[in-house]
């Protein structure tokens, strides 16, 4: 028996009042996560026309909500939480907290940061290496963590007999879109030759298949739709939000490419939302690793299993070197995790909010009113969010 239903009493009752970002850099910024988060958080509070005293909920990972409250002098909060990534999880709990009345106006934030195990150069910042004992890992004979996506990429190639170029198109699409995003970390054009000659990290994935470690921060205000309508920026309504996971969710025990968290997200989000692929103006599939994006195209229903690469080819705009589905719908127009920077989906959500507010600058999708976000990967982090303009 399935427990998934269309039941969604909070549909369109809660809204993003605003979003802000520091922009991302693919180098050690010389700043703390607190500094980056403070910039994004104060920017979004001010952009919404609010003050610290208006915030009664805090939701984020680093710095912790108690640290954030102290840092920004937020007088009193009635709810706070520190949910795990990706960031749709934070949106889900903040939306539910507002809808239920635990609080009314939540500050949500996320701070992508180059951690000592991301890159060798991260370790050149002595502060980043503190507390990281050397040689304490389980050794190489494991596919936990990021290696898991590489392992399932090998399975994807095995089952569907597709070339690595299908992964490469995902990377090129992101880079072409990032060229129009001044906050993106990588904006120089990328060719298929560049992709195929990039350094192999873990076969079958190379450097350009993996999200870019960056420093930066995003911040959001989530409040009731009613209150958002009285604030400075156009509200963006949460149409539906969901997480998804199946019984066997360890990287090496996951049943198959056609049976993991993404299918649960698709079933639930589709049942709870007012629109799906034929009604969205922008699509945001997660791209922490390129095969995740192809799997999202397939599971979301844009195409069949194993057809993600062919779908991208069929919807490729050669002049712009990017995906325009049906000649119209851009995919990760901010440049995604691969070129804007790895943000654990906060960048995707922020871009969706800005697009639906008409604040996306030169990459604005004319008349955009709906956005479909399918965040996260396969195992224990698949998530979905549909947003509509008010």
């Amino acid at each position, binding site marked *: 028996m399935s427990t998934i239903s269309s039941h969604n009493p909070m549909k369109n009752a809660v809204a993003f009042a605003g979003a802000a970002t520091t922009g991302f850099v693919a180098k050690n910024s010389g700043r703390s996560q607190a500094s980056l988060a403070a910039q994004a958080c104060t920017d979004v509070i001010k952009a919404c026309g609010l003050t610290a005293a208006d915030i009664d909920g805090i939701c984020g990972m680093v710095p912790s909500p108690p640290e954030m409250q102290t840092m920004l002098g937020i007088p009193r909060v009635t709810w706070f939480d520190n949910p795990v990534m990706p960031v749709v999880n934070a949106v889900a709990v903040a939306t539910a907290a507002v809808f239920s009345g635990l609080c009314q106006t939540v500050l949500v934030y996320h701070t992508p940061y180059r951690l000592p195990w991301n890159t060798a150069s991260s370790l050149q910042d002595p502060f980043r290496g503190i507390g990281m004992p050397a*040689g*304490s*890992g*389980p*050794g*190489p*004979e*494991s*596919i936990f963590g990021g*290696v898991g996506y*590489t*392992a*399932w990429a*090998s*399975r994807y190639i*095995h089952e569907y007999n597709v070339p690595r170029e299908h992964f490469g198109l995902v990377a090129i699409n992101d880079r072409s879109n990032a060229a129009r995003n001044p906050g993106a970390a990588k904006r120089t054009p990328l060719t298929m030759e560049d992709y195929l000659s990039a*350094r*192999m*990290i*873990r*076969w079958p994935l190379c450097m350009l298949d993996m999200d870019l470690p960056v420093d930066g921060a995003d911040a959001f205000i989530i409040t009731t739709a009613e209150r958002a309508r009285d604030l400075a920026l156009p509200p963006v309504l949460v149409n539906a939000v969901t997480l998804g996971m199946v*019984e*066997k969710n*360890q990287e*090496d*025990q996951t*049943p198959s490419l056609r049976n993991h968290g993404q299918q649960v997200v698709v079933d639930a989000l589709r049942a709870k939302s007012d629109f799906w692929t034929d009604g969205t103006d922008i699509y945001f599939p997660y791209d922490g690793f390129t095969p995740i994006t192809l799997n999202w195209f397939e599971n979301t229903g844009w195409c069949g299993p194993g057809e993600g690469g062919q779908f991208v080819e069929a919807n490729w705009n050669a002049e712009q070197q990017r995906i325009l589905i049906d000649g119209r719908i851009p995919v990760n127009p901010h440049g995604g995790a691969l070129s804007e920077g790895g943000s654990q989906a906060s960048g995707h959500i922020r871009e969706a909010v800005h697009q639906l507010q008409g604040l996306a600058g030169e990459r604005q999708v004319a008349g955009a009113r709906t956005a479909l976000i399918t965040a996260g990967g396969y195992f224990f982090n698949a998530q979905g969010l549909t947003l509509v303009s008010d």
Partner: protein
Amino acid sequence: MTDLITDADLVRLFPGQPLTHDSAAHYRGRLERRLLINRCTDCGTWQQPPFPICPKCWSTAVVPTEVAGTGTIHLVVFLYQGPPAPGVDYSTPYPVATIELDEQPGLRFTSTVIGAPNDDIVIGKRVTLDWIDRAGTPLPVFRLTEGAAS
């Protein structure tokens, strides 16, 4: 013999491994070069990773049980870089493979494959358990099964 191995010994012998009261028997088995996987003695269901209850019938009569050590490569990665480990040289990309064990569909164990060129280590190939030494403790690994059709 391994009854004399204390929990503290296990932590010292298997640095970085997920040792708990539920996984300790698996690691004690490694010291005897026996690959132990949790199995429910009531309904026969195998489980990975080791939890203290059967996910199918909720029996707590779950016993670490030796597997035959035969299976099929389900996933494979070749690491061009990775964590330092004695005897692992990434100048030849290092294979990490998830093996589907013959005991039960979907029951998988992840390690490396030894004794074969990387081009031969592909999804679908049959493998057999073997053991190597890793910093003084036995490590379960796999070899391609000779004469087996893929």
